[in-house]
C-alpha cells in the first residue's frame, strides 16, 4: 500500500507539472476510497436516512386519522409527545420488561448456541452436516410460522405440550393456560425467540471455533487444563471479537422482538406482554396515536444506540476490533 502511493510521487518530479495522469494518480487512494463507499452511503441514506428523518418529524407532530385519511399536513407540536411518554410510569415498566426480556433471551441464545457450536466441532462429519441442515431449516422458517407452531404446541385445549406433560403421573395439565401467568407466558415467547435465534449464532460461532488453532488447545491440555479452563482461557479469548458482534446483534434483535409477541397473543397483546416494539405499535396503530408511537420508536433507537456505542467502545478499548 505505502509503496504504491509513493511511487507516483517520485515520478512526479520527472513529469511536466499539471499533467492529468499524475494528478489523478496522486489523488487516487483517497478518491477511490470515497468512491467505493459512496454507493453504500447513498443506499443507506435512501433506505434508512429518509425513513429516519420522517420518523423524527412524525414524533414532533400530532398526526391523527383526519390527516391520514385526507392527506392534510399534520401540525407540529414540538416535544409534547416525548414529554407525554417520559412522564408515563407505564413506559418505564415497558422499558424494564424489555431489558429483562432481552437479557434473558441473549444469555440463553449465546449459551445454547455455544454448546451447539462445540457439539458441532466434536461431532462426526455426517452428524455435523445433519446439524447444519437442521439449523438452516430452523433459520429459514418465517417467524410468524414458527410462532404459530409454538402456539399450537402450547395451545390451551389441544396443545401437545399439555398432553405430554399431563401424562406424567400426578400432573393435571388439562386446560393449563400458559399465558395466564406472565412468567410462564414469557417463558413460551422466550422459547420461540431463542429457537429462532440459535441457528445464526451457532453457525457463526462454529465458524469461529473451527478457526481456533488446535495446537493452542492441545498445548493447554498438555499443561493440565481441563475442558472448562481450555474454553474460558484459550478458546473464548480468541473468539471474543465474534462474541462481541453476535451479542450486539442479538441485543438489537431481541430488544425489538415484535412478531413473536404479537402472534402469540393473537394480535391483542395484554399490557403485561408489551415490550417496546409492541408498545410502540399499539400506541401508533392500535389507538391511532401515530406521533406518540413514532416518539417511542425514536426513544427505542436512542436506547439501543447508547448501548451499542458503549459496548463497542468497551470492545475497542480491549483492542478486539480494529
Amino acid at each position, binding site marked *: 500500500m505505502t509503496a504504491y502511493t509513493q511511487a507516483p510521487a517520485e515520478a512526479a518530479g520527472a513529469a511536466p507539472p499539471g499533467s492529468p495522469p499524475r494528478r489523478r494518480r496522486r489523488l487516487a487512494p483517497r478518491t477511490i476510497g470515497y468512491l467505493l463507499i459512496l454507493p453504500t452511503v447513498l443506499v443507506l441514506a435512501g433506505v434508512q436516512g429518509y425513513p429516519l428523518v420522517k420518523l423524527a418529524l412524525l414524533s414532533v407532530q400530532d398526526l391523527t386519522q*383526519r390527516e*391520514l385519511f385526507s*392527506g392534510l399536513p399534520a401540525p407540529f407540536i414540538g416535544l409534547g409527545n416525548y414529554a407525554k411518554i417520559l412522564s408515563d410510569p407505564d413506559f418505564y415498566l415497558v422499558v424494564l420488561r424489555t431489558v429483562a426480556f432481552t437479557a434473558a433471551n441473549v444469555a440463553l441464545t449465546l449459551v445454547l448456541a455455544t454448546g451447539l457450536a462445540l457439539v458441532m466441532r466434536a461431532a462426526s462429519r455426517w452428524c455435523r452436516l445433519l446439524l447444519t441442515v437442521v439449523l438452516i431449516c430452523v433459520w429459514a422458517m418465517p417467524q410468524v410460522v414458527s410462532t404459530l407452531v409454538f402456539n399450537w404446541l402450547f395451545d390451551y385445549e389441544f396443545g401437545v405440550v399439555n398432553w405430554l406433560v399431563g401424562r406424567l403421573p400426578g400432573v393435571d395439565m388439562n*386446560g393449563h393456560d400458559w399465558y395466564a401467568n406472565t412468567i410462564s407466558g414469557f417463558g413460551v415467547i422466550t422459547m420461540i425467540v431463542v429457537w429462532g435465534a440459535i441457528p445464526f449464532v451457532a453457525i457463526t460461532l462454529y465458524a469461529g471455533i473451527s478457526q481456533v488453532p488446535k495446537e493452542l488447545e492441545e498445548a493447554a491440555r498438555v499443561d493440565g487444563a481441563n475442558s472448562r479452563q481450555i474454553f474460558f482461557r484459550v478458546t473464548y479469548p480468541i473468539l471474543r471479537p465474534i462474541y462481541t458482534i453476535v451479542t450486539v446483534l442479538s441485543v438489537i434483535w431481541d430488544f425489538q422482538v415484535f412478531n413473536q409477541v404479537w402472534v402469540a397473543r393473537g394480535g391483542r397483546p395484554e399490557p403485561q406482554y408489551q415490550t417496546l416494539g409492541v408498545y410502540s405499535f399499539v400506541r401508533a*396503530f392500535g389507538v391511532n396515536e401515530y406521533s406518540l408511537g413514532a416518539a417511542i*420508536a425514536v426513544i427505542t433507537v436512542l436506547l439501543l444506540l447508547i448501548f451499542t456505542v458503549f459496548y463497542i467502545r468497551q470492545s475497542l478499548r480491549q483492542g478486539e*476490533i480494529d
Partner: protein
Amino acid sequence: MKHRLMAAAGLAAVLLGATLATTACGNGSGAAGSTGKIDTKGDKNATGTLTVWLQVDAQSSWPNAVKAATTSFHKKYPKVTVKVSYQAWNDHLTKLDAALTGKHVPDVVEMGDTETTSYLANGAFRDLTDSKNLFADSANWNSGLAASCTYEGKVYCVPYYSGSRIVFYRKDMFAKAGIGAPPKTLAELMTDGGKLNKKYGSDPKFSAFYMPGKFWYSAMSFVQDAGGTIATKKGGKWVGGLDSPAAIKGLTQWKALSDQLSAASKTSDEANPQQYTVMAQGHVAMMYGLGWEGASVSADGNGGNPKLKDSIGSFAMPSGSGKEAMQSFAGGSDLAITAKSQHPDWAAAWTAAMTSQSNEKLLMKAGNVPNTTTLLAQAKSDPALAAAASSATDSWMVPISTGWPKVEKSSILQNGLSDIATGKKSVADACKQMNQQVEQALNGS
C-alpha cells in the same frame, strides 16, 4: 479512531433499519373529492375492479348473500370485476387505516357499529346523505344502526345487519341431566349448570356454560343487567360507570358463572377460537352466541358438527335482577363507501344490492337481525328468529363517542376482564382500573 467510528456507524445503521421496519408509517396522498351525486344506473361498458372488504362472518355463514349481491350488481355493470376479501375482526381496523392512507383503497368496507364514529368524524367515508334513496327501505333503517352511520346530521354508511346474543344449549344434555325447561333466572341457570357439571363432570373438557375470559360483550351485559353502565355523558364529559356497585355486582355474577361452569381459557375471547367450533366438539352444554352461531354449531363444514343437528336449542339469556331477560349487546355492522374510492357509483350499486330486501332475508335465514324495522317485524313472527329479534329491540349499546374505538382497539375491557377471570385482580380493583382507562379514552386524554 476512524475505524471505531465506522464500526459504530455501521452497527447503528443496522439497528435503525430494524427498528424502522416495525414503525415505518405511510404517507398520505391528496384528498379525493368525496362530494357530488352518485349514480347507480349502470354501465354496460364500464371495466375495472371493485374492491369490497367484508368481515369473515359473511364468508363462513352467508356466502350465498354475497354471491346474490354480486350477481345482481353484474346486471348493471357486467364487465366490472368484484373482488371481495374477508377480514378478521381482530386487526381489520389497523389494516383499514393503513389502506386508507394510500391511493389504492377498498371501495366498500364493512365496519362494526361501535367502530364507525371516529371514521365518520375524520372524513374516511363518503357522504351519502343525498344518496340515501338508492338503498332499499332507507326510511325504516334500524335506529341503532342508523345512528352509528350518522354524524352531525349527515349519513356516511348503510346499515348492513345486526345481531343479538342468545344462549344456545344442548337439548340432549339438558334432558340427560334431568332439566325439564330452560332456566328463567340467572339463579336457575347456575343451578342447572351445577346439575350438568355433576352429570358430565368426569369429562375434564366439559363446560356447562362456555365463557372465555375476554368475552366482553357478555360481561358488559351482566353489568347492564345489574343496573350499571360503561359510561354516561354528563355536561360534555364522559363519566365512567364501571366502578359503581352495580357494575361490580354484575361482574361478580359473571365471574361466578365463569368460575363454576366454564372450562374455557380465561385469556382468550369468543372469537379465538370461534366458540361455535368449540361447542361443535361436543364438550359444551351452553354458550352465549350470536344468532348465526347456533346454526354454525351443526353446520357441515367450517368447524361445525352435523351430528348435533337436532340437539341445539336456544333461549334468551336469563336476567339476574328480575327482568324478563338479560339485555343483549346491540352489535351490528354497516357498509361504508370510502371517501377515496375511485368508483363510488359501483360501490353504491354493490352496497345497494348487498342490503336489498331479498338479500337481507338471506341474512335473516343465517340468523341475523335485518337492517330495517319492516323486516324486523317479520322476523319476530318467525319462530326461528323470534328470540334474536326481540332481544334486538331490547338491547344496550356502547357509549357513542369518537373515543370509543380507542377503548376497543387497546382492549381495555378484555384485559380487565381477563384479570378478573384469572383472579389476577379482584373484581373491584379491575373495575377501578377499567373505569379509569375508559374515561381517559372517551375524554381523549
